[in-house]
């Protein structure tokens, strides 16, 4: 299959964890079409899952009627996924790097998602745009794209 060197697609999802598997399929399809290999695709999928999980759990706090958007914009070597919500804004700088040993004691996994996103993607940027919050996750295509 010929790779796509330009992608611009978006989808709106209800704020419930049942949509996470659909989000993963959506990102999987476009990351594959853009030419990423299996390992990179699974890393991008996980980072986007974590961003969406944060929106569902924290920005919307279980409001099932709320919606968020996942947009893929890819060109050149840049594959960017933006997750946008209109819920409570988020201050990433207030989330400390997790100490797993400490977290085991307090039985909480909070902060692991952001930590993973930063490990898995080349850049992770948070922005407030009016009433919207955006997290933009970028991964660069490093190897020669598949033919």
């Amino acid at each position, binding site marked *: 299959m010929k790779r796509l060197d330009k992608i611009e697609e978006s989808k709106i999802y209800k704020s419930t964890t049942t949509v996470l598997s659909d989000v993963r399929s959506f990102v999987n399809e476009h990351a594959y079409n853009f030419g990423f290999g299996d390992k990179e695709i699974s890393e991008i999928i996980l980072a986007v899952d974590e961003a969406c999980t944060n929106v569902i759990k924290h920005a919307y706090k279980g409001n099932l009627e709320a919606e968020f958007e996942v947009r893929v914009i890819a060109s050149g070597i840049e594959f960017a996924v933006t997750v946008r919500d209109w819920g409570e804004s988020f201050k990433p700088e207030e989330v400390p790097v997790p100490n797993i040993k400490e977290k085991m004691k307090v039985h909480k996994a909070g902060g692991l*998602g952001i930590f993973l996103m930063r490990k898995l993607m080349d850049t992770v940027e948070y922005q407030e745009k009016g009433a919207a919050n955006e997290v933009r996750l970028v991964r660069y295509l490093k190897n020669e794209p598949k033919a």
Partner: protein
Amino acid sequence: MNEFKVLTRDSGNAVVMELHGFLDAHTAPELEKTFSELIGKGKFNIVVNFSELNYISSAGLGVFMAYIDEIRTNHGDIKLANMQQKVYNVFDLLGFPFLYEIYKDQDEALRKFSNH
């Protein structure tokens, strides 16, 4: 939708927990329920077989963190086994290999319990 299933069975003085499918924020509560039932029955020696688990996110990892302390306080452990590479990579990124015993093979993990 991506499915998730947990099967448990006794093996000597331990319980083997087999995970199947996709473990994310949607399916993690099912795993929590299984851990909490085992703890309720006083079963603290747990081997988790990951061979059929295709995906894990931090919500899934959080479940292992939530119960390990209580289990170790009761002289048990959660030992992890048979992980696919992509699942292991996520555990590795978060430093789990320093805090949990991870085995290539379930039987090796079970033997560690039978030695006690």
